[in-house]
């Protein structure tokens, strides 16, 4: 039964994706076309994968936090801005920019992400503050903190190496953020496979008291998921800042926290915690990106795009709601019963009876 509900979870965003792609195909049959420019692939699909990379990574972390704590972190965009400001600061402060210094700066920014996650996580896990309220603190203060770290408005990353991370490394046909996202997804998949994080987090999210009586420390697990989310924000911030080429503490990854939560919801994950599907959230994140680009392609006025997006999401949420699901299940059962009845009415096949 688990498999079937799980299948349905992923089925819905997938079919939405299919509908969106169909709309795009109707608009222009060249939707899937890919062109080679300077040795790298460009086109609608690569652009979607490129554009959604930060959102996908944030959605993965958000899924884990949602599962263990039954709440959402609304400070992910801000956290990414802070950790990337540290990255920029360290990088610009070093004597020369090489792959090594970039790696060191990145690792330091990951550390910052973990500290931010631990801060949010300890408020949630130890002081039992509602996740949204706990992360509201950083949400409010974060961009000012990032500005203070920057020391000035929008420091610029003017060098080849970081811009290669944000776009294309010569000789590699795929844009770097797409590769980074794929690697990150793989790391998360391996981590989930190699540990009991899923079982522990789901148990803590569903029934923390019972989890504790079975030897799981709910505080530690919640803290761990927030720290993992911290790493996710650092990676997302790293990609975002290399894409932009400068650190705009006011606008970097603005409003992405809501999209990350939305991706988790579209992925069929209960926002109240417990069972979770990372693949659902990833598909959800790509769906949001495709939706944004489809609306742009349909020449919806950028000023009104948010309203159209809202309508679309409203329909999606209603269709995937438990009420509609129950109706759908009933309908399927009735159909099956009718089918069985007509089959039974048919004269019996003697061969089959023998078998």
């Amino acid at each position, binding site marked *: *039964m*688990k*498999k079937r509900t799980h299948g349905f979870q992923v089925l819905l965003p997938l079919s939405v994706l299919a509908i969106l792609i169909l709309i795009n195909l109707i608009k222009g049959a060249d939707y899937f076309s890919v062109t080679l420019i300077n040795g790298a692939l460009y086109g609608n699909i690569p652009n979607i994968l490129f554009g959604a990379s930060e959102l996908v990574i944030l959605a993965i972390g958000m899924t884990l936090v949602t599962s263990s704590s039954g709440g959402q972190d609304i400070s992910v965009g801000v956290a990414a801005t802070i950790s990337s400001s540290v990255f920029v600061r360290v990088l610009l402060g070093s004597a020369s920019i090489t792959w090594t210094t970039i790696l060191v700066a990145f690792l330091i920014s990951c550390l910052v992400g973990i500290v931010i996650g631990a801060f949010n996580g300890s408020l949630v896990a130890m002081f039992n503050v509602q996740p949204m309220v706990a992360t509201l603190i950083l949400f409010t203060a974060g961009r000012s903190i990032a500005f203070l770290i920057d020391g000035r408005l929008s420091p610029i990353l003017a060098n080849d190496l970081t811009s290669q991370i944000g776009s294309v490394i010569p000789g590699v046909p795929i844009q770097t953020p797409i590769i980074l996202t794929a690697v990150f997804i793989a790391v998360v998949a391996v981590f989930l*496979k*190699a*540990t*009991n*994080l899923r*079982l*522990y987090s*789901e*148990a803590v999210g*569903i*029934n923390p*008291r*019972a*989890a*504790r*009586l*079975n*030897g*799981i*420390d709910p505080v530690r697990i919640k803290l761990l998921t927030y720290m993992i989310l911290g790493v996710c924000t650092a990676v997302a911030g790293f990609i975002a800042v290399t894409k932009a080429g400068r650190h705009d503490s006011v606008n970097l990854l603005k409003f992405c926290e809501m999209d990350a939560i939305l991706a988790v919801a579209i992925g069929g994950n209960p926002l109240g915690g*417990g*069972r979770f599907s990372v693949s659902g959230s990833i598909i959800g994140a790509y769906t949001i990106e495709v939706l944004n680009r489809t609306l742009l392609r349909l020449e919806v006025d950028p000023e009104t795009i948010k309203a159209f997006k809202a309508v679309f999401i409203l329909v999606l949420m209603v269709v995937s709601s438990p009420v509609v699901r129950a109706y759908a299940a009933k309908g399927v059962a009735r159909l099956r019963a009718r089918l069985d009845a007509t089959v039974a009415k048919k004269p019996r096949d003697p061969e089959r009876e023998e078998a």
Partner: protein
Amino acid sequence: MGENGAGKSTLIKVMTGVYEKDSGQIAIEGNAIHFKSPQDAQAFGVGTVYQEITLCPNLTVAENMFIGRGRYAFVNWKRMRERAARLLDSLGIPARPTQQLSSCSLAIQQMIAIARAIDMDCKILILDEPTSSLDEDEVRKLFSLMRELKSRGVGIVFVTHFLDQVYEISDRITVLRNGEFIGEYEASALPQFELVSKMMGKALDDVARIRKHEPSTRAGETPVFEATGLSSAAGVRPFDFSIRKGEVNGFTGLLGSGRSESVRAIYAADKVTGGDIKIKGKKANIGEPIHAMRLGIGYLPEDRKGDGIIADLSVRDNIILALQVLHGFWKPFSRKQAEAFADEYIRSLNIKTASSATPIKSLSGGNQQKAILARWLLTHPEYLILDEPTRGIDVGTKVEIQKLVLKLAEEGVSVTFISSEIEEMLRTCSRLIVMRDRSIVGELTGGDLTENVVMRVIAGGS
């Protein structure tokens, strides 16, 4: 009446509009009625108290009694409190209207749920397992209340697992088995053993055949577990306790006497505030449940829904949970291994489930309990604590669990067994620790293990 999974609770949910009926007819005073929701049922005078308490623990007693009942958006708080106080008083429920519900014991909460249903001016009152968390005195109060309502002309449907209670209060008995109607009988014309065999669909595997095995007492043997001066934040007075290898002992006493709190202190389920613990003679420190687990202690909690099951997870995950945690965060079992563990116990304990991937919440109470039992058996504990493992489950499963306890003891596992039913404990335990007012008041062995003596000690006689 009916065993676990016979369809009692489901039938009641259909009768009260929680589930919509697919076919058939419901008539009240001769008029055919179709309930679309529980509110519908209430409007027609069908009041219900469900098996699991469905009140809001964070609201006050009075709010719980009247919530969702007003026709108006405004609430007259003073009047509400007064009415609540009157009702509580007339039913003899020891709770204040302004008290938060979560500060009441389970039994009191149950009685408040009944009070809520009664005040709805109901013609028909449906009680699904109302007595499973009440002690005898409270059951008596409830029964006198039920008789009072009966004389006022209220029809009562009473669902229970307690055979004695059915015979004490009911006029007619309807038996269900495996979701089917078996029959309806006059209570006076249906002998108890016949009722049980109808429920089980076979001749009763006589409970009398359960024989406990007396562990040979060797002087100077080191106990498997020994505690001195143990106390916990849940308010249990410092107590001494020990258990030998292969021994079955039990804590008994009235509800709220501290028997659950005592075993919770042993397992560190509540914060331990003092005391020394020795495992096989060696000093040990149990500050968290995980420490107890690592020392080979298993604990089946009293509150199955709140402390036992992880409702949304599969039966498989629920079964392997404790062993998996002992195994370690970095060493998850493979799917195949987990499947094998779960299937082994689903078979050996005869857990009725569609598959091991079914969410545990969709199983009946008794089968959920068996799954939790399987969870601990899988860890092969040296010392197993079972707090009310037989509560709210059918006769057949109760017998199975008692037999299992004795079998475990024969294999050398030490078991602490708690049950509200004294006969069950007398059948299984070779030593009974009697509690009153959160401290140990007596310890009974051998010839003292009779119902009479136990009752006397509980009641405070000599």
